[in-house]
C-alpha cells in the first residue's frame, strides 16, 4: 500500500451527529396502604391475574397486565432530551405499552433527582410503531419518483440490485459518488457501527449534517474553538439566573424542564428573552421581548451597560479571554510574533502587561503567574522591519464599538425597551452564577454567529463560566469512545497498524507543540475533512444539490454583501478554507438516507429535487416509517423500530448516562440497521466477485480491496448479520469512559453513568470531570485548571482577524440587520422545534396530531391577522419571491406583531399539493461561514462549516 492514508482513530466518526364486588376479591386489604413509603421491592412481585370472567372492575384490572418487560428507549436524537430509560411491556408478542423506568439515582441530596424523564412522544411509540406509516417490506418504486406507486420485493432482490448499482458506481466513476446521509437516527451504537464500517471500507462519502440542519452553533465555534460543551441538567439547580435566550426548553427539554421549575422554587430567577411569549416564558420570573434578528444588538447593549457601570469581572477577562490581546491599528489584525520577529510564529499573539509591555500570551496554560494583562492599552510598538505601529487591546476596540449600542440606540435595533435592557444588564451584573439554556435557534439564523458571540461576551464580561450553575453553553453531546477502535478493527491487520502508528506519530508531534488532548482530536478531525474522509453535508447540498441557486439574489437581500456569494464560495474552495466531496462536477450517483429525511429537512428542497435527483442512479431510504424522502426514493427498506433492536446510544451532559436496551419484539420484514449494512456489505462483496472486480481506487489514488469486503466488515465472521447485541457489547468493551460498566448488565439495567468524558471529539469539549456524586459544570478544566481553549489565542476569543471576517466587518461581534431572504415582505417567518415530534418521527402520528389541529398550523399575531381579515382557524396563503403554500392559522395574543411562527418538521406530504414552508425558504449562504485556514476557523466534525438557515425568511400572508 503506497502513500499515506491520513486515517486515524478519530476520523471515522460519523456525523452527529440522536370495585357491595371489589371487596369480595379481597382487594380492600391491598389498597388500605399505610402512610410510610414502602421499601423498594426486592425483585419481582408475583401477583395473580384477576379471574377471566369477573365483573367490570376485572375488565380494567385485566387490561393492566403484560407477559414481559424489556428495557429500551427511543434511539433517535431528541438531542437535549436524550435519553430516557423506558420499560417496554410486551403482551402476546406485541408491544402493548411503555412506561418510564424512573430508577435513576439522586446525584446529590441537595439537588432533585433525574426521575422520571420521558415525554408524550416516547409514551406513545407503542402505537406509532404499528401505525399505517410503518414500512413492512422492502419496496421498489413502480412509477415515477414521488408517485406513491410501489412494488413489494424481497430483501434479496433489493440488496442485490442496490449492490449492483454501488459496484458499477465504484468501478466506473468512483467510490466517493456513493453518499450516506445519516440523519437523526445515528446512535453511536450498533446502528452506527455498521454504517461506519461499510462507508469507510468503501471510502465513500458520509455527510456531516449538523450545520445543515442548523445546529452548527457557528458563533460558539468562533469563540471557543469548539461547540460541544454543556452542563448536566441538575447543575441548573445551582444557578441563580437561568436565561432562556433563543431556547424553548418547555418544548425541547421536556425531561429536564423540572430542574428549571424546581430551581425557580429554590430561589433562581428564570429569564426568557424571546420575540413571542412562548411556552417557556409561562413560568419565567422575567420575560423580555426582542425582535427576531435583534439579539446581537441586545447583547451588545447589555455589554455597554456592564462596562459603563463597571459590573465586569476583570480578573476573569484578563485570564480567560482575548480581550487584553493587542491588535494593530494599521491592519486591524492581531499583533503576532511574526510581526515582531523575523521567522516568528504566526500563531503567537501578545497582550500588554502593566510592567513588561507587550508580552507573548502563554499558550500551554492560562496560568498567568505574575503576568498582569491590561484590559485597556494604547501604545506603540516596533515591528521587525522597523515600522512603528499603534496597538490597542481588543477590549479598547470593543469599547469603541459598543459606544453605539447604548440601550437607547440599541432599542430600535432589538425591539427591547431601554429600561428592560438596563434591567437585564443589572441582573447579569448582580448574578452569582448566571447560566444559559442551550439554544440551537441561532444556528438557523444568517447572522446567528454574531448573536452567539455576543451572548458569550455577556457571560465572559461577568465572569460567568466555570462556577457551578454558570455559563453560556454550546451544543451538548456525550458519547462512549469505543466506536473509532471498532471501525479501525475492520481494516486488515497491516493497514490497521499503519493507521494507528500514523495517528500516534501525529499525536506526539502535536502534544510536543503544546496541544491539549482536545486540540489533538480536533486537529485530526480537521485532517479528515481536508482529506475528504468527512464531508460537509451543508456544502454538499449547496453545490451538488443546487441549493446555492436560491442565494442568487443575496446581494439584494444582504446589505453588507458586496460581491456575489458564488464568488466567495469559489474562493473558499480554491483556498482550501472549506472542502466539498465529491469534487464539483463529479456527480453523486448512489445515495442512502438512513433514518434521515433530507427532503423534509432541507430548506429549499425543491432545488435538490431539481438538481441532485436526476444525477442519482439509485436513491435508497432506510427507515421504519414512510417519509417525504421515502416517497421520492427508488427503494425503501424497512428498518427495525427502536424497541425491535438491541442498542445503546449517545446522550448529552444534560443527562450523563449512557442508555441501552434489548430487543423486545420483531415486526414483519424489518431488520436492524446493523443487519441491513451487514447484508449490504455481503451483497456488494458478492456482486464485485461475480464481476471480477477485486479492488478500486480510493480518493487519494490508492488501491483498496473490494475482495474480502464482507470478511473485513464482519471481522472475519465474528460479527454476523444478527449480531447487534455482540456489536453493541464490543463498543462498550472498547470504551474508556464507562469504567466498570459491563454490557450484559447495562442492557438489562437500561442506563449507566459515564465515568469521564472520554477521549472522543464528541464529548471532550465539555472539559469537566464526571463524578458519580456531583453535577457537571462545563469548562471547569479551562476556568479552574487553566487549560487553554482550542482557539488561535488559546482564550475565549472575541476578535477574529481571518480575512473574510475583516472583509465583512465582523472582527468583533456587531449587530447586522438580517437579510430579507425571499424578498422584501413585511412579515418574518420564524420557527422552533416542536413539542410534538422529534424531527419528523412523530409528525404524522395520529395521537400527536389529535393534540394539535391535525395538520400544520401557523401562529400569527392579532395585529397582523386582523387587517388581513384572517380569523383563527382560517386557511391562509403564505408567499414570497420563491414560492407559496397554504396553511391553517392560529391567531394568538402571545405572538409578536411582525412575526409568524411555524414549528418544525412537518413532512411535505402534510401540506396541500405537498408544498409547505420549506418550499419558500432560501437558506442564504453567509459568506463568513466560508472562512477557513486559520486555526479554529477550519471545518471539523459537526462545526465550522457553512450552515443552512431559515430564520430570516420574509413572507406575506393572505386569506386563502
Amino acid at each position, binding site marked *: 500500500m503506497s502513500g499515506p492514508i491520513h486515517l486515524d482513530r478519530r476520523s471515522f466518526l460519523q456525523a452527529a451527529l440522536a*370495585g*357491595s364486588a371489589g371487596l369480595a376479591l379481597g*382487594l380492600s386489604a*391491598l*389498597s*388500605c*396502604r399505610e*402512610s*410510610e413509603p*414502602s421499601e*423498594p*421491592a426486592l425483585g*419481582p*412481585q*408475583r*401477583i395473580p391475574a384477576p379471574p377471566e370472567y369477573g365483573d367490570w*372492575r376485572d*375488565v*380494567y*384490572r385485566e387490561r393492566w397486565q403484560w407477559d414481559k418487560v424489556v428495557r429500551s428507549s427511543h434511539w433517535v436524537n431528541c438531542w437535549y432530551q436524550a435519553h430516557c430509560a423506558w420499560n417496554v411491556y410486551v403482551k402476546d408478542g406485541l408491544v402493548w405499552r411503555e*412506561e418510564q*423506568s*424512573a430508577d435513576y439515582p*439522586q446525584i446529590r441530596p441537595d439537588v*432533585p*433527582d433525574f*426521575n422520571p424523564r420521558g415525554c*408524550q412522544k416516547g*409514551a406513545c411509540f407503542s402505537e406509532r410503531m404499528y401505525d*399505517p406509516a410503518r414500512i413492512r417490506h422492502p419496496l421498489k418504486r413502480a412509477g415515477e419518483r*414521488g*408517485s*406513491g*406507486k410501489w412494488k413489494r420485493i424481497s430483501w434479496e432482490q433489493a440488496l442485490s440490485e442496490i449492490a449492483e448499482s454501488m459496484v458499477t458506481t465504484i468501478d466506473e466513476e468512483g467510490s466517493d459518488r456513493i453518499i450516506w446521509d445519516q440523519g437523526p437516527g445515528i446512535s453511536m451504537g450498533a446502528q452506527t457501527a455498521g454504517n461506519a464500517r461499510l462507508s469507510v471500507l468503501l471510502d465513500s462519502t458520509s455527510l456531516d449534517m449538523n450545520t445543515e440542519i442548523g445546529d452548527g452553533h457557528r458563533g460558539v465555534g468562533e469563540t471557543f474553538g469548539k461547540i460541544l460543551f454543556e452542563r448536566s441538567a441538575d447543575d441548573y439547580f445551582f444557578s441563580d439566573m437561568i436565561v432562556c435566550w433563543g431556547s424553548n426548553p*418547555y418544548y425541547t427539554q421536556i425531561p429536564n424542564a423540572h430542574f428549571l*421549575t424546581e430551581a425557580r*422554587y429554590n430561589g433562581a430567577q428564570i429569564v426568557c428573552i424571546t420575540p413571542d*411569549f*412562548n*411556552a417557556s416564558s*409561562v413560568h419565567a*420570573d422575567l420575560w423580555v421581548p426582542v425582535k427576531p434578528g435583534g439579539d446581537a444588538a441586545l447583547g451588545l447593549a447589555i455589554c455597554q451597560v456592564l462596562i459603563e457601570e463597571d459590573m465586569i469581572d476583570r480578573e476573569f477577562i484578563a485570564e480567560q479571554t482575548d480581550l487584553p490581546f493587542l491588535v494593530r491599528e494599521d491592519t486591524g489584525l492581531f499583533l503576532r510574533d511574526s510581526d515582531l520577529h523575523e521567522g516568528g510564529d504566526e500563531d503567537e499573539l501578545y497582550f500588554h502587561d502593566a510592567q513588561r509591555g507587550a508580552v507573548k500570551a502563554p499558550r500551554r496554560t492560562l496560568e498567568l503567574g505574575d503576568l498582569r494583562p491590561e484590559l485597556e492599552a494604547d501604545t506603540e510598538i516596533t515591528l521587525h522591519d522597523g515600522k512603528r505601529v499603534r496597538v490597542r487591546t481588543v477590549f479598547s476596540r470593543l469599547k469603541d464599538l459598543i459606544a453605539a449600542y447604548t440601550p437607547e440606540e440599541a432599542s430600535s435595533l432589538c425591539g427591547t*425597551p431601554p*429600561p*428592560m435592557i438596563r434591567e437585564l444588564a443589572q441582573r447579569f451584573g448582580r448574578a452569582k452564577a448566571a447560566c444559559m439554556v442551550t439554544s440551537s435557534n441561532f444556528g438557523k439564523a444568517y447572522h446567528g454567529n454574531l448573536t452567539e458571540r455576543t451572548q458569550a461576551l455577556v457571560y465572559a464580561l461577568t465572569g460567568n463560566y466555570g462556577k457551578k450553575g454558570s455559563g453560556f453553553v454550546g451544543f451538548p453531546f456525550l458519547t462512549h469512545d469505543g466506536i473509532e477502535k471498532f471501525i479501525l478493527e475492520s481494516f486488515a491487520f497491516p493497514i490497521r497498524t499503519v493507521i494507528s502508528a500514523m495517528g500516534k506519530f501525529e499525536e506526539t508531534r502535536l502534544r510536543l507543540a503544546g496541544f491539549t488532548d482536545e486540540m489533538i482530536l480536533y486537529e485530526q478531525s480537521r485532517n479528515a475533512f481536508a482529506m475528504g474522509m468527512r464531508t460537509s453535508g451543508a456544502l454538499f447540498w449547496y453545490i451538488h444539490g443546487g441549493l446555492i441557486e436560491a442565494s442568487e439574489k443575496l446581494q439584494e437581500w444582504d446589505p453588507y454583501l458586496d460581491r456575489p456569494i458564488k464568488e466567495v464560495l469559489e474562493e473558499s474552495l480554491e483556498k482550501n478554507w472549506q472542502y466539498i466531496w465529491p469534487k464539483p462536477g463529479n456527480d453523486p450517483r448512489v445515495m442512502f438516507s438512513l433514518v434521515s429525511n433530507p427532503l423534509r429537512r432541507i430548506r429549499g428542497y425543491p432545488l435538490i429535487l431539481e438538481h441532485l435527483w436526476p444525477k442519482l442512479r439509485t436513491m435508497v431510504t432506510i427507515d421504519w416509517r414512510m417519509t417525504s424522502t421515502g416517497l421520492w426514493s427508488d427503494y425503501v427498506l424497512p428498518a427495525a423500530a427502536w424497541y425491535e433492536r438491541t442498542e445503546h446510544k449517545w446522550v448529552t451532559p444534560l443527562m450523563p448516562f449512557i442508555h441501552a436496551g434489548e430487543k423486545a419484539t420483531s415486526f414483519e420484514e424489518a431488520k436492524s440497521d446493523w443487519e441491513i449494512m451487514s447484508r449490504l456489505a455481503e451483497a456488494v462483496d458478492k456482486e464485485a466477485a461475480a464481476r471480477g472486480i477485486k479492488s478500486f481506487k480510493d480518493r487519494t489514488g490508492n488501491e483498496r480491496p473490494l475482495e474480502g469486503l464482507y470478511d473485513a466488515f464482519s471481522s472475519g465472521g465474528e460479527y454476523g448479520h444478527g449480531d447487534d447485541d455482540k456489536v453493541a457489547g464490543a463498543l462498550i468493551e472498547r470504551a474508556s469512559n464507562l469504567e466498570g460498566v459491563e454490557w450484559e448488565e447495562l442492557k438489562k439495567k437500561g442506563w449507566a453513568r459515564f465515568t469521564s468524558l472520554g477521549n472522543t471529539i464528541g464529548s471532550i469539549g465539555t472539559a469537566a470531570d464526571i463524578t458519580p456524586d456531583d453535577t457537571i459544570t462545563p469548562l471547569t478544566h479551562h476556568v479552574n485548571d487553566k487549560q487553554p481553549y482550542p482557539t488561535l489565542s488559546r482564550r475565549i476569543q472575541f476578535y477574529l482577524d481571518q480575512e473574510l471576517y475583516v472583509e465583512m466587518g465582523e472582527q468583533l461581534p456587531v449587530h447586522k440587520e438580517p437579510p430579507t431572504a425571499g424578498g422584501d415582505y413585511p412579515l418574518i417567518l420564524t420557527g422552533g422545534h416542536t413539542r410534538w415530534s422529534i424531527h419528523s418521527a412523530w409528525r404524522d402520528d*395520529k*395521537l400527536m*396530531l389529535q*393534540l*394539535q389541529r*391535525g395538520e400544520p398550523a401557523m*401562529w400569527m*399575531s392579532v395585529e397582523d391577522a386582523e387587517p388581513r381579515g384572517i380569523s383563527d382557524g382560517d386557511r391562509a396563503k403564505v408567499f414570497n419571491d420563491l414560492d407559496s403554500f397554504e396553511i391553517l392559522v392560529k391567531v*394568538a395574543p402571545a*405572538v*409578536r406583531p411582525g412575526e409568524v411562527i411555524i414549528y418544525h418538521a412537518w413532512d411535505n406530504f*402534510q*401540506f*396541500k*399539493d405537498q408544498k409547505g414552508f420549506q418550499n419558500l425558504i432560501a437558506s442564504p449562504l453567509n459568506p463568513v461561514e466560508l472562512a477557513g485556514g486559520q486555526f479554529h476557523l477550519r471545518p471539523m466534525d459537526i462545526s465550522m462549516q457553512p450552515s443552512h438557515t431559515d430564520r430570516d425568511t420574509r413572507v406575506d400572508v393572505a386569506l386563502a
Partner: protein
Amino acid sequence: MTKSDRQLAMVLDLNKCIGCHTCSIACKRLWTRDEGMEYMWWNTVNTQPGRGTPRDWQEMGGGFRDGQALPGKLPTRGEFGDAWKFNHEEVFYGGKGEKAHLKPQGKDPHWGPNWDEDQGGGEYPNAYYFYLPRICNHCTHPACLEACPRKAIEKRQQDGIVVINEDRCRGYRFCMEACPYKKIYFNHAEKVSQKCIFCFPRIEQGVANACARQCPGRVRFVGYRDDQAAPIYKLVDKWKVALPLHPDYGTEPNVFYVPPIAPPSFDENGDLDPSKPRIPDEYLVSLFGPEVLEVLEVLKAEMAKKREGAESELMDLLIAYKWKEMFGGFDRDPATIEWTGS
C-alpha cells in the same frame, strides 16, 4: 354527601406543568384504546385562558348551587373533539403523487382536545397563559353519582375513588349532564358512560396513577388526604396552597391545584409594571375562588425566603427532591410485577 373511610387525592402544581401532555398519553395508552374510546381523553391538558375540553365546558352547567342540583348540558363528540381519521395509505401507497396529502378525513374539524394550545389571552406584550391538566376530581359530593337513577356510580369505601359500574350502567348519561367538569364520556360501542378510574388497578397494587407517575414535569402528588406525613396533606390542609378548581360547583373535588405565577407585565413605556399581574387576579379567582390571591402571596413569600438563602418547608415540598416521595406510599415500580396465569 358520600363519606368514604379514606380519600385519595391529587395535587397538581401549575408552576411546573409545561403542557407536554405526557399524562394524557399515559392514560390514553393504558385505558382508552378500545372501540368507542377513540375520542376519549380522560386526562386533558388545556391552555388557559382557552375554551377547554370540551369546548366551553365552564358554561355547560351541572353541579350544585346551595345544595340544589343544577341542570347541565351533554357535550357532543365534536365539542370534546372527535377522533380524527387520517389517510396515510392514500398518501403513501395510493399512487396519487402530490395530489394526495395527509389530513383529517371527512369534514374539517372545528375543535380538538388541545385546539387552542399556546394562544392565550391578554394583549401583546402582556399576553398570558398557563396549562391546566384535569382528570375526574373524585368528588366528595359527586354530582354524577347523585344524578344516576340506577345508582350505577359508586364511591369506593376504602379510598373514595368514584367509579361507574359498567355492568349496571345503561348509558343514560345523566351523569354527563350533571358533572360540572364534564369529565365523563359516552362509549357508543359499549353504550356505557366512562371516565377516569383513578387507575384503581394500579392503586390496588401500590402503584401510582399513570398520569402522575409518568409526568416528566413532576407536577403531581398522590396520596390519602388524611396522611399527615405525606405531601398532599401538607399542601392542602397545612399550608393550604393547593385549591380545588371551581369550588363554586359544589361537588367538593379531591383534585387540587397550586396556582401559577407568571412573569411581570409591562407598562406603556416598556417598564415592568408590578401593579398589574400578568395573569389578571379576576381570572385566577374565577377558577379557584378568592383564596387564590392569598395563596399567591404565600408562594411568593416562600420563594423570596429561598432567594435570600433561608429555609422553606413549602418550597422543599414543592421541589420534591426525591421523586418517589410524591406518591404518598404508592411508589411501587410496576415493572417489578410479574403476573401469574389466571
